[in-house]
C-alpha cells in the first residue's frame, strides 16, 4: 500500500485531495454523494466577519469549458460558522480548512482571532484574491505589499497552518508568492478565479448581476498549471493546486507541476463524486507506475 499522506504547511492530510472553497458549501451539501471521511481535507465556503448577502443574480454564467461566478461571498458570518457549521464538520475524521475574507486588515485580524479560539479548525486559507467583492478581496492579492500586510496580520493572530490563496490576475505570481511567504504563510493555494465577463448580445448588457465574475473550470487549467509550476520552483513552501481539475489526470498534472495537494472546485458541480474519482485515479496511477509515496510525484516534471 503506497503512501498518500502529505503535509500542507503543518496540516497533516491523509491524502492530497481537498475541495476548492465556495464549491463545496460547508460540508453537508455533498454528504449524500460521498463519504466526507475520505477527503484529505475540506475547505469551506469563504467566511467573513459579518454575515453577507452577496451579489445580485444572475450569479453564474456558463462559458466555453468554464463558468463565471459572482457569488460575492454570501455567507452567514464567522460566528454562525463556528456555532452551526463547525460542530457538524467535527464529526468527520477530516481536517477543516476555513477560507477567510475581509474588507480590511482589521477584519482579517478579528476573524482569525475568533477562528483560532474555536475548536475544530485545521488551517486557515486566507483569500486575498476574491474578484467578486468591491472592497478588499482581489485588491489585496494583486499587490505584493497589500498581500504581505494581510498575511502578516493573520500570522500574528494564529498558530494554525496558514495558507495564502493567491489571485492569478497578476503580472508576476512569483513575486506575490514570495511576498506572502516572507510575511509568514506556511503554504500557498493557487489559483483563484480569473477575472472575466460575458455579455448578452440580445439584451446588450452583461449577463452577470455583478457585471464581472470569476472564471473557473477546465478553461483555466493551463494558466493554473503554469502558475503552480512557476511558484513551486521559486518558493520553498507546499502548494495547494487548483483550477479546472476535473479528474485524476488533471490532479496529477498539478502534482507533477509542484502541488503537494489539490483542490477540486467546479468539477463538483459536474460530478458530485469528483473528489472521490480523483482520489481513486491517483491511487491507480501510483499503482500503475509503482510510485510508493505521493510526495515523490510533487514537482516531478521539473525536479
Amino acid at each position: 500500500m503506497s503512501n498518500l499522506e502529505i503535509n500542507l504547511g503543518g496540516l497533516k492530510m491523509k491524502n492530497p485531495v481537498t475541495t476548492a472553497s465556495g464549491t463545496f458549501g460547508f460540508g453537508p451539501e455533498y454528504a449524500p454523494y460521498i463519504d466526507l471521511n475520505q477527503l484529505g481535507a475540506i475547505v469551506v465556503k469563504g467566511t467573513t466577519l459579518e454575515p453577507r448577502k452577496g451579489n445580485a443574480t444572475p450569479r453564474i454564467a456558463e462559458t466555453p469549458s468554464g463558468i463565471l461566478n459572482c457569488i460575492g461571498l454570501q455567507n452567514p458570518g464567522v460566528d454562525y460558522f463556528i456555532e452551526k457549521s463547525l460542530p457538524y464538520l467535527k464529526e468527520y475524521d477530516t481536517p477543516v480548512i476555513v477560507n477567510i475574507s475581509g474588507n480590511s486588515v482589521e477584519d482579517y485580524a478579528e476573524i482569525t482571532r475568533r477562528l483560532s479560539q474555536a475548536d475544530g479548525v485545521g488551517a486557515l486559507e486566507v483569500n486575498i484574491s476574491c474578484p467578486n467583492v468591491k472592497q478588499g478581496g482581489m485588491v489585496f492579492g494583486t499587490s505584493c505589499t497589500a498581500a504581505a500586510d494581510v498575511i502578516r496580520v493573520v500570522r500574528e493572530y494564529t498558530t494554525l497552518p496558514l495558507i495564502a490563496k493567491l489571485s492569478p490576475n497578476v503580472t508576476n505570481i512569483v513575486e506575490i508568492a514570495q511576498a506572502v511567504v516572507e510575511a509568514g504563510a506556511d503554504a500557498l493555494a493557487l489559483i483563484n478565479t480569473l477575472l472575466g465577463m460575458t455579455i448578452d448580445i440580445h439584451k446588450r448588457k452583461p449577463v452577470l448581476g455583478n457585471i464581472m465574475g470569476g472564471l473557473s473550470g477546465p478553461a483555466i487549467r493551463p494558466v493554473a498549471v503554469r502558475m503552480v509550476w512557476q511558484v513551486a520552483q521559486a518558493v520553498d513552501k507546499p502548494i495547494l493546486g487548483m483550477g479546472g481539475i476535473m479528474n485524476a489526470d488533471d490532479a496529477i498534472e498539478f502534482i507533477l507541476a509542484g502541488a503537494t495537494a489539490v483542490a477540486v472546485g467546479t468539477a463538483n458541480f459536474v460530478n458530485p463524486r469528483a473528489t472521490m474519482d480523483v482520489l481513486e485515479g491517483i491511487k491507480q496511477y501510483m499503482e500503475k507506475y509503482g510510485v510508493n509515496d505521493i510526495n515523490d510525484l510533487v514537482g516531478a516534471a521539473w525536479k
Partner: protein
Amino acid sequence: MSFSGLSKVISNEKTGPQQFLIVLHSPELTKQAKPGQFVHVRVNGLSDPLLRRPISLHEIDYASGNVSLLYQVVGKGTELLSGVPAGAEVDVMGPLGNGFWIPEGVKRVLVVGGGIGNAPLLPLVKELKDRGVEQTVLLGGRTVDYVAGLEGFKSVGVTVETATDDGSLGRKGFVTQLAEDIFTLDKPDYFFACGPEPMLKQLIITADKYGISGQVSLEERMGCAVGACLACVCKIKVKTDEAGWDYKKVCVDGPVFEASEVVFDV
C-alpha cells in the same frame, strides 16, 4: 443517499415544436421522487457544455421505475439532450429540491401552469387526484403548440382549461386571466403554479386580492443544485432580516416556495 449516475434512455421523442419528452429508466430516482422535484442532467461527457441542466420530473412511474422529463429546446444543452437516442445512457442526479407539499385541510385547489412550466405540475395533479383533492387545472402557452403536456393532464381525468396568447387554443389571453375568473366565480382554497416569472408575479398579486395562498415553483441558473455554490438564489421574505428578505437557494430551499414569500425584483 441521493442518486447520481447513468440512466438508460427508454425513448426521447419530439412532442411539439422544439419540445421533447425523454423517458429514463431510473428506479433510484422513482424510489425517492415526489412532485415538484427536479433532476440535474449532464447532456454529454465533455466540457462543452460544462454544467448540468436542471429539468423537472414530469412523470414518475413508481411501478416501472421510469421517469419522464418534458423539455423545451432553448439552447445548446437542451439541443444536445434532444439528440440522445433511445438505448443510450444519460447522467442524471436527483431527485433534487423540496417539491410541492399539500397543506392539511386543502379541499379545492387551482393548478396554474404556463408554457414549459406545466411540466412539473403533472405529478402534482396526479397526487392531488389520488388524495381526493378537487382541482381545476389551467394551462397556458404562447400558442396551442406551447401548452406543454396538455394530453397528459387531460388523461388524468381532471378539469383542464387553457389559454393562449393568440387564441389558437382555449381562451385568448393570459392564463392569469382565467385564474382570476375562477377566483371570482368559484373560489378555491389554495393554488399551485409554475411558469414564467411575469405570470407567477401576476398570479400572486391576483390571488392575494382574493385572499388565496399558494405555492410557486421558481427557476434560477444553477451550478451545483445541492446548495453548495449559492448561484441559484432568489429573494424570499424573512422577518428576522432587517431588509425584510434574504437570499434562499432555489435548488434546496425551493424550487417550490410559499407564494406570499417570494420577492420579485421589479
